């Protein structure tokens, strides 16, 4: 019955070992899908390569379906998994800043590690930038502490906002994602790019 660590089926050390292995899987899939290339990553914003859209949303819906089905079969207890909390202000402001970082740098932290591992120097520089950015945050923490903690809503799920069940929301998101995939394919044909 999952999650395994909560039910003491595995020890903390096994948990860390598995974290490593999960990371290996994560890195492998990212790299194999092309996320080690900043030009592919940025492509979704210009239409020439929508790999980000496809992988991201397919992963999200696979995850949603997987978790809900596992809960249905009694394989996992969803009450014990981590749902990240919602602090409206800091999420939105942080998100905007991250968006700017994304379009400038062409990476996000996970993909930058994966790209750095295959030798991309721009990824390594990006990682250096990450450290600097984190340092700026921690050093100036008192300045933004209030904003950081503002508007805490707990850990609401999106389906609660609409008054839907989790399954129904998943279904809607599946439809939205599929629609986006179709648009994505259209965009790729419309904005082709030479080899990159």
């Amino acid at each position, binding site marked *: 019955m999952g999650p395994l660590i909560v039910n003491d089926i595995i020890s903390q050390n096994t948990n860390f070992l598995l974290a490593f292995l999960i990371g*290996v899987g*994560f890195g492998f899939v990212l790299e194999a899908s*092309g996320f080690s290339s900043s030009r592919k990553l940025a492509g979704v914003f210009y239409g020439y390569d929508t790999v980000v859209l496809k992988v*991201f949303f397919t992963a999200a819906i696979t995850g949603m379906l997987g978790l809900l089905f596992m809960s249905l079969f009694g394989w996992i207890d969803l009450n014990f998994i981590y749902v990240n*909390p919602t602090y409206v202000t800091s999420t939105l402001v942080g998100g905007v800043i*991250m968006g700017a970082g994304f379009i400038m740098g062409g990476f996000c932290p996970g993909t*930058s590690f994966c790209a750095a591992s295959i030798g991309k120097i721009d990824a390594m520089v990006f990682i250096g930038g990450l450290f600097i950015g984190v340092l700026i945050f921690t050093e100036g923490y008192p300045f933004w502490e209030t904003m950081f903690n503002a508007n805490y809503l707990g850990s609401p799920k999106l389906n609660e906002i609409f008054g839907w069940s989790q399954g129904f929301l998943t279904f809607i998101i599946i439809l939205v994602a599929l629609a986006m995939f179709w648009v994505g394919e259209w965009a790729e044909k419309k904005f082709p790019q030479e080899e990159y």
Partner: protein
Amino acid sequence: MQDRLHDIFINKNNNMNDIKKTKYINPYLGGVLLGLVLIVAYYVSGRGLGASGAIKSTTVTIVDKLAPEYTQKAVFYQDFKKTHPQPMKNWLVFEMLGVLVGGLISGAIAGRLKFKVEHSPKITSKRRLIFALMGGILFGYGSQLGRGCTSGSALSGMAVLSLGGFLSMAAIFGTAFALAYFFRKNWI
């Protein structure tokens, strides 16, 4: 038969002018696999994937080692150390080490291991690196403020239907789309 399977699973990045073919897997397949990795993470450890947290742990550890008297007084470090007595013995740190290995393996199999600065032929390497650095700084700061990056907050958050995850997703991608025009010279 070989060709058929080959064509389904390997999405050749060629359009009208095809030159070099980089063999990446089909993105939908990649997405499904990534979703499976995510499910395993939740099943085993009760949490999703993540990345920026490992950077935070490392930064805090380094600063603490280099300037311990300073961290005694700084609010952030004290709060962090209270909740994380051993910052480096952290799920995310182990996971990111795995990411490095996993990426390396995949790159090695596909023959993509090479030191290079990847940039659009229309700009110089130097320009690319400058923007990479700036992007990194912004992303590093933003991920701390947003309590997660695309993997930790957006992807994992969406898989559990968290409101924060969706907001994060919308903010990051929305902003990137909005600003795309201004940085187009770097990419296309």
